[in-house]
C-alpha cells in the first residue's frame, strides 16, 4: 500500500511542470476555437455528384471562396451518388451528367431543377499504328460496340477512310467497368442511332455490354486503349486531349463529319433548348455540332425550405449558381470544358430565378 502511494507521488509530482503546461495548452486551444468560431460566420455549402466536371468545379469553388468567402465542399462520388444524396437531403446540391429519371424524381418527392454548368464531349479513341485520324458513321460505331464488326479492315470502316489502310487485326472493344455519366451520354447516343442497340442494350450509367473489356474510370479505359494495339474505346474529350490519344471524327445528324473540340461541343447546344434544360444533346440537330455531347447539371430542389435550411444558405446557393453560369464560365475553356452558349445561359438564368424559399423567389 505504501509503495503504491510512493509510486503515485513520484509520477504525479514530477508532472507538476506538465500540469502547468497542460493548463496553458487548454487555454490556447479554447482561444483558437473561439477565434475560428468567430471567423466561421462564412457560409458553407455541400455538394456531391459527377466526377466529370470535378476539375472545373474544383477550380471554380476555389476562386469563389477567395472572391466571395463562401466555402463549398464538393465530393466527386459519381452522378448516381449525387442524385441519391440529394434525395436523402444530405447535400445542398447534386452534380449529375445524367437527367434524373421519373423514378428518381418520384423518390426525391419535390421538384428538382437541372441547371447546366458546362458541356462535355465523349470521343471514340483507338490504338493503331501511326495514330491515324479516322472517320466513323454512327451505325459503324454501334456495330463495333455490338460486336458485329470484328476487324479493323472491315469494308464499312475502309469505305470512309480511303487514305488510311487499317490493318487486318481484331478490334478489341474497351468500355467502362464502373457506372458513369460518360457511359450514359455514349449509350444514349447509340440508342438514338441504332435501333438494335436500343433493343439489345439500352442506355444508362451501367450496361450489359455485348462485347469487350472494361476499364475503371476514364483513366482505366484510356490506359487499356493505349496499351492494347487494335483497341477501340470511348473517353471524355479532356482525357483524350491530355493523354494525346487519337480520336475519330463522327458524322452528325446533318451529314457533316465533325471533329470533337470545345467549339463543336458548345455548338451542339445550338438547337431548341427546353425551358427545364433536361435536354439530351446527343445526335444533335445543330449543323456544326459534335454528335456525342452532353450537358452536366447541378441539381437543386426548387423549394429550398427543407431540412432546417436557413434563408441565408439558400441565398448563398442561388448566388453561387448565378456566378457559376456567368463569371465562372471563363474558367471552363482553359480546363478543356465547353462553356455554355448564350441561349443556354439564358435558360439557366430563368431556372435560377425560379428557386424559391417558402414559395418566394430568392433572386429578385
Amino acid at each position, binding site marked *: 500500500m505504501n509503495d*503504491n502511494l510512493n509510486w503515485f507521488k513520484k509520477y504525479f509530482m514530477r508532472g507538476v511542470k506538465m500540469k502547468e503546461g497542460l493548463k496553458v495548452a487548454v487555454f490556447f486551444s479554447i482561444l483558437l476555437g473561439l477565434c475560428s468560431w468567430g471567423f466561421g460566420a462564412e457560409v458553407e455549402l455541400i455538394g456531391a455528384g459527377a466526377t466529370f466536371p470535378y476539375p472545373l468545379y474544383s477550380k471554380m469553388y476555389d476562386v469563389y471562396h477567395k472572391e466571395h468567402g463562401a466555402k463549398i465542399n464538393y465530393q466527386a*462520388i*459519381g*452522378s*448516381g*451518388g449525387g*442524385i*441519391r444524396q440529394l434525395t436523402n437531403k444530405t447535400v445542398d446540391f447534386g452534380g449529375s451528367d445524367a437527367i434524373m*429519371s421519373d*423514378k*428518381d424524381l418520384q423518390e426525391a418527392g419535390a421538384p428538382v431543377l437541372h441547371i447546366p454548368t458546362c458541356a462535355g464531349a465523349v470521343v471514340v479513341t483507338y490504338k493503331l499504328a501511326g495514330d491515324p485520324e479516322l472517320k466513323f458513321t454512327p451505325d459503324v460505331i454501334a456495330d463495333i460496340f455490338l460486336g458485329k464488326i470484328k476487324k479493323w479492315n472491315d469494308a464499312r470502316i475502309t469505305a470512309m477512310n480511303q487514305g488510311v489502310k487499317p490493318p487486318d487485326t*481484331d478490334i*478489341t472493344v474497351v468500355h467502362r*467497368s*464502373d*457506372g*458513369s455519366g460518360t457511359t450514359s451520354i455514349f449509350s444514349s447516343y447509340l440508342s438514338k442511332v441504332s435501333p438494335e442497340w436500343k433493343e439489345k*442494350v*439500352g*442506355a*444508362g*450509367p*451501367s*450496361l*450489359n*455490354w455485348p462485347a*469487350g*473489356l*472494361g*476499364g*475503371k474510370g476514364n483513366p*482505366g479505359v484510356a*490506359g*487499356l486503349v493505349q*496499351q*492494347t494495339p487494335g483497341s477501340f474505346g470511348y473517353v471524355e474529350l479532356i482525357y483524350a486531349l491530355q493523354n494525346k490519344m487519337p480520336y475519330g471524327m463522327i458524322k452528325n445528324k446533318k451529314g457533316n463529319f465533325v471533329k470533337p473540340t470545345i467549339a463543336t461541343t458548345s455548338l451542339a447546344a445550338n438547337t431548341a433548348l427546353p425551358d427545364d434544360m433536361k435536354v439530351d444533346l446527343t445526335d444533335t440537330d445543330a449543323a456544326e455540332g459534335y454528335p456525342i455531347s452532353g450537358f452536366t447539371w447541378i441539381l437543386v430542389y426548387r423549394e429550398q425550405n427543407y431540412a432546417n435550411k436557413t434563408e441565408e444558405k439558400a441565398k448563398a446557393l442561388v448566388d453561387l449558381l448565378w456566378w457559376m453560369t456567368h463569371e465562372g464560365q471563363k474558367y471552363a475553356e482553359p480546363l478543356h470544358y465547353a462553356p455554355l452558349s448564350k441561349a443556354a445561359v439564358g435558360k439557366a438564368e430563368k431556372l435560377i430565378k425560379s428557386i424559391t424559399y417558402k414559395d418566394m423567389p430568392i433572386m429578385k
Partner: protein
Amino acid sequence: MNHTIADTAVHASRAKITMQYKWGISEALFRRLLYFAGLILVVLLAAIFFSLAIASFPALRQFGFSFLIGKTWDPVRGEFGAFAFLVGTLMSSFMALLISTVFSLPVSIFLGEYFRHGNVSTFMKSVIELLAGIPSVIYGFWGLFLLVPLVRALETKLGVAPQGVGIFTSSLVLAVMIIPYASSIGTEVISLVPSDLKEAALSLGATRFEVIRKIVLPYAYSGIFAGILLALGRALGETMAVTMVIGNSNFLPKSIFSPGNTMASIIANEFTEATGSLYLASLIELALVLFIVTTIINISGKLIIRKMSTGK
C-alpha cells in the same frame, strides 16, 4: 536447491494472492472481460450477416434462387444474375492458390528448415512481410502496366486473343499477393516440428530431403493447410488489384485467358452509381453471396484440418 514442488506451489499461490490484493482485479472479472470481447466478435459477424440479408431483401424476393444461376447482369432491364461472377471469383482465387502454393511451400521449408536464424532468414522474412504490406492498388497498377504486356506477348505466342487482361493475369497478381499469408504460417509450423523426431530419422540414415518429406511435412501438414486456407480467404475477397487486370467482362469465362469479373470487383465498380432499389439490393445480395461462399470455404477447410489432425 531444496525447493520442493510444494514449496513452489505455495510461493506461487501466495504471490497470486498478493498480486490480486495489490491490483484489485479478480480472476473472475478478467475472465468475464475476455468472454465479453469474444462475444462482441460473434455479435458483429451476425450483425454483418443480418444487415446484408435485410438490405438485399428486394432482390431475394424478386429473383430467389435464380440469382445464383442467372447468367445476365443487365442494370438497364433490371435482370441480375450472379453466376458469371461466382465462376470468375472461384476460378481466379483457386488458380491463384495453386500458383502461390508452388512458391509458398518451398519458401516455408526454406525458412523453417534450412535458414531458421541469421541474415538470410531475417532478409527473406522482411521481404515477405513487405510483400504483404504493399497496398492492393499498387499491385493493380503493377499488374496493369508490367504484367499485362507480358501476358499479351505470351498470348500472342500461344495464338490466343492477345488482350493481356483476363483471369490468368488476375490469378498471377493474386498469387503474388497471397504468398506471404501461406508462407508465414507454414514457416512457423515447420520450425515447430520437434527436433528429436528429425534427429531420430537422421540417425537412422535418412537424407535431409527424406527427413523433410517423411517427417517434417506430414507433421506440419495441418498447419500448412491452415495457412493455405488463410491465403484463399484473402484471394476471394480481393477487390482493387483484381478489378484492374481482370478485364471486367460480365460473361462466363471460356478459358483461363478470357476476361471475366469477380463479385468483389463488380460491387466496387457499380455501387456508387447504382440508382434504384432493385439494383442496389442486387449488389448487396452479391455481397451476401460472397460472404456465404467465404464462410462455407472456411468451415470446410477447418473440417478438413480437423480430420487430418485426428486422422493421424
